């Protein structure tokens, strides 16, 4: 937990302003780096590893090799990938000299105080639109001390706060932090334990248990579910999710479609993610799934608005 006077830090992979799809109103979306899951369809692969890394955008590179001239570690290669990460000591000189923004630091360590300053610049827009800040990832709960401090700072500034989580965290450790959030988007993936482990690399027991506890203890939790062809959209999984929602007395689900934009980011930083090669989730299947939820008395929200079938 926060020690007095010292602001905790966390690696931030991106701060995205004017974000409209992750909570009410105009929001700033903050991506924290590092995740315990490794979902095959991960849409933010650059946020999986917890350590900061230098990303290389091949399409922006003009091959001026200013980076090569300044690198003290001989970590720049002229090959397909510009950085040899085993040699790189993260001095960041290459980023400074690149004139084309082809190299970028992903996961700069910011203190909770710094992050607060960074999100405060749009405070008047949060206020005028009932918006706020959404913490996403990676998995933000990995940085529990930081998260707690940041949430407290936002509370003091009257900033509405949403958390997006995969649900894999220690409930007892996080419970007081979670109480500082105005909304928790909880991601449901696959309820079958074996299939979940296969697709994400992790057990879902703690995740489901956490979901139950949050609901039992009346946290402002809403469930989100991403349709990924062949992974999450099987009828059995849909039925399991419906049953689970009924069990925890929820009648709404935020339905999302898999998009493959994340695949373009595979390879810009080191990581284990493989390309799935799936197209964006088709509209007709989305409608079929939405209607299936609807028939089972679960209201479907898409992009914050109710999908109606009458």
């Amino acid at each position, binding site marked *: 937990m926060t020690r007095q006077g010292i602001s905790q830090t966390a690696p931030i992979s991106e701060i*995205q*302003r*004017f*974000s*409209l*799809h992750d909570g009410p*109103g*105009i929001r700033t979306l903050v991506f924290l780096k590092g995740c315990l899951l490794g979902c095959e369809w991960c849409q933010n692969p650059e946020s999986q590893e917890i350590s900061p890394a230098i990303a290389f955008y091949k399409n922006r590179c*003009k091959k*001026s090799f200013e980076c090569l001239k300044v690198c003290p570690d001989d970590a720049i290669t002229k090959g397909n990938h510009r950085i040899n990460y085993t040699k790189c000591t993260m001095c960041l000189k290459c980023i400074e000299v690149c*004139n*084309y*923004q082809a190299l970028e630091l992903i996961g700069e360590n910011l203190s909770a105080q710094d992050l607060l300053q960074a999100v405060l*610049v*749009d405070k*008047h*827009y949060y*206020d*005028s*639109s*009932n*918006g706020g800040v959404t913490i996403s990832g990676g998995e933000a709960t990995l940085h529990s001390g930081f998260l707690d401090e940041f949430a407290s700072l936002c509370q003091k500034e009257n900033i509405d706060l949403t958390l997006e989580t995969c649900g894999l965290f220690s409930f007892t450790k996080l419970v007081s932090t979670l109480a500082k959030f105005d909304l928790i988007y909880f991601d449901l993936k696959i309820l079958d334990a074996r299939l979940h482990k296969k697709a994400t690399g992790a057990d879902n027991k703690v995740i489901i248990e956490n979901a139950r506890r949050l609901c039992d203890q009346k946290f402002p939790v809403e469930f989100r579910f991403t349709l990924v062809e062949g992974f999450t959209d099987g009828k059995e999984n849909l039925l399991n999710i419906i049953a689970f929602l009924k069990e925890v007395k929820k009648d709404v689900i935020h339905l999302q479609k898999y998009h493959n934009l994340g695949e373009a980011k595979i390879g810009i930083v080191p990581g284990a993610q493989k390309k799935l090669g799936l197209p964006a989730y088709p*509209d007709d299947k*989305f*409608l079929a799934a939405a209607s299936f939820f609807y028939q089972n008395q679960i209201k479907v929200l*898409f*992009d*914050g*608005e109710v*999908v*109606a*079938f009458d």
Partner: protein
Amino acid sequence: MIQLQKIKQSPFRITGRLKQLQDDHLSTKASLGAERAIHYTEFFKKNAKKYDSKYMKMAQALYYHLNNRSIRIYPGEIIIGTHTEHRIGAICQPELAGTVMLEDLFSFEKRSTNPLHIDKKSKSILLKKVIPYWLSKNVLAKSFSTAKGLKYSMDQLKATFYIINEAGGIAHFLPDYEKLINKGTNGIRKQINKKISEAENLTPQNRDYLKASLVSLDAVEVFADRYKKLAFTQGNLEIVEMLENVPRKPASSLKEALQQIWFFQMIIQIESLDQGISLGRIDQYLYPIYQKEIKAKVFSENDFKETFAAFCLKLSEVIPLFSKRMTKLFGGLPSGQALTIGGIGKDNKCAANELTYMILDVIEGFKTRQPNWHARISKRSCDKYVKRAIQVVAGGGGSPALYNDDVIIGALTKRKIAKPRAQNYATIGCVEPGIPGESFTSSDAAIFNLPIALEIILGEGKRISGGLFKQQSGKNKTRLKDIQTFDTLMELVEVELAHQISYLKKNLDKIEKGNADFHPTPFSSLLIKGCIESALDSTEGGALFNASGIQGIGLADLADSLAAIKTVVFDKKEHSLEEVAQACRNDFKNFSTLKAKLIKAPKFGNDDAQVDEIAARIAAMFDKIVSSYKNTRGGDWIPGAYSMTCHNAFGANMAALPSGRGQQESLADGLAPSDGSDMAGPTASLNSVTRIDHEHFPNGVNLNIKFSSNIIRGKKGSDILRGLVTGYFNNGGMQVQVNVLDKKLLEDAIVNPDKHRNMLVRISGYSAYFTDLTPQMQREVIDRTFHGC
């Protein structure tokens, strides 16, 4: 995207008579209305010498024209009268800039953008009689000695340093339509006669002016009587009955009021110039008549909306006569007839009323080129009104543009306008706030190219582009190597801006004087408070409030360029200023690394205080220089920051800039960041814009933001837009206009223009049919930052 929600039916349905009028309007080709030019030429050749005073010459010319103009009433018309002899027409005022526009006489019909039909006979008369007569007698020619005039004209046509719009006539004001509908021409006549009877206080000049005012009233009455007679012979008793009352008597119904206003709206544009004649707060001044109709139980909501829509079609019949050259500056056929709704009243409370909502229904359901719809919003506006206004904006078409009462009223009161008056402001032309019925602010007097100052500094006193005839145009020839600090550079920028603006001042003074000496406008002056009272024409300073609006454009380009120089030359010391100048001279050819560094430097529009503060300093400088001058009518110069499509035209004549903008590329639009340089989304972009104190621009700013239609859709989209606008206004933003566009639809409109004739887009201060834009401007609309997420 999935669209499952039912599309909500617009509350205003276009049926029957109105549908017919709309179809007829959209299928009518625009024509050049030559009769105004021909009649005025005939009059000045034959009859003008009969009259001694300049006022009487102009008034009698108007009378002669209106007494002879061909007139028609079209089938099903609710409001009658056209401002030219054609249904959709461009008028030619040969004594103003009309002869200059006629440079395209042989290509009007064939040109691809905004073709104009013209019949052979008229063409021949224009060519043989009109143009030769006015070549040496137009206001511009008379204002300058020939050689100076020629040089001036060349500069103007090239759009380099500045453009003086007043050279084409002044116009741009808010006629006192409240007075008109309450008094009628009879009442105004009475007022003039009373003034004449105070003979002992009047100079002969005063008397001449007042006599001409009476003839101007005769002119509108004779015009209306001719229409009445025509309606009678056609058995159109509906129209006859209406014209029994107006324009002479006070309007007894909303329909009569709109007809009465249209008579004056037409004729002001015939007499003066068809630019920026604006309608003011129509929902406010029509309200008492509405209440009377309600009380008498004769009001019909649908009839009102239909009549209002027909009135809007009338406004849309006015298209400007622009040559191809002018179209680059002011594309999309703007006539700048602004119409203001909402805002706060004199009691400081929300002034939105039933008419406001009905008018919003018309804006939403009946898209027309004109008027320029402007909605005032204040912190005190009621929730229902703001919500509805934003909902209409979110529906697309770019209307209404939104104005922040709190900032504008503050800016006006700082310019010595008492608060109750400032609270009653309405907008003129594109974006300019003015006081209805009391001010003659020549709000669109001139447009000044800000980054030209830097181009001249980089050229050590000469422009670095501009062809063979480059000449010393700068104030000083400071060698670049002697500029050792960024502050020195900023000082030089200020000196150069002041120097160039002093040239503008000299030329504008001559043109103002020319307008006063050779082109008084007694008809227009009838509805400007102060003119009859002081027996002085508006061109001579008769109005209660006088001013001249001077716009600075390319603010973002100048700020970005200075920030790039600061970063690369003064902070990092990687390159010399000479190198930067050389790179610009060469359009960055062989300077690709330097160009990349310049582009990498901070850019306005990303919420970066360092560059935003440079922009703020330039705004303050421009304000200080402009505000130090007075015009020849005794009013202040007031700065504005809107560009119409001039940013395009100025850019086309400029060298590359240190911002990384290439040679001939467009400058930034109004107060907006340079195209594509705002990379951190709309909130960051707007934060940069509000780091500039908008009170520096009491003559108005334009800020265009564009969203692709899949962002701003449905209720959520409308809520987001409201949040964005409210946040921006609370933070000091003065004005915003929002385009909600579908990129695919726009692409299709380029390929299949006929399918999309009524697709409106917001340009600078006005909406235009996308298909009326030049190909280059169409590309600009499509390419400019589409805010998505």
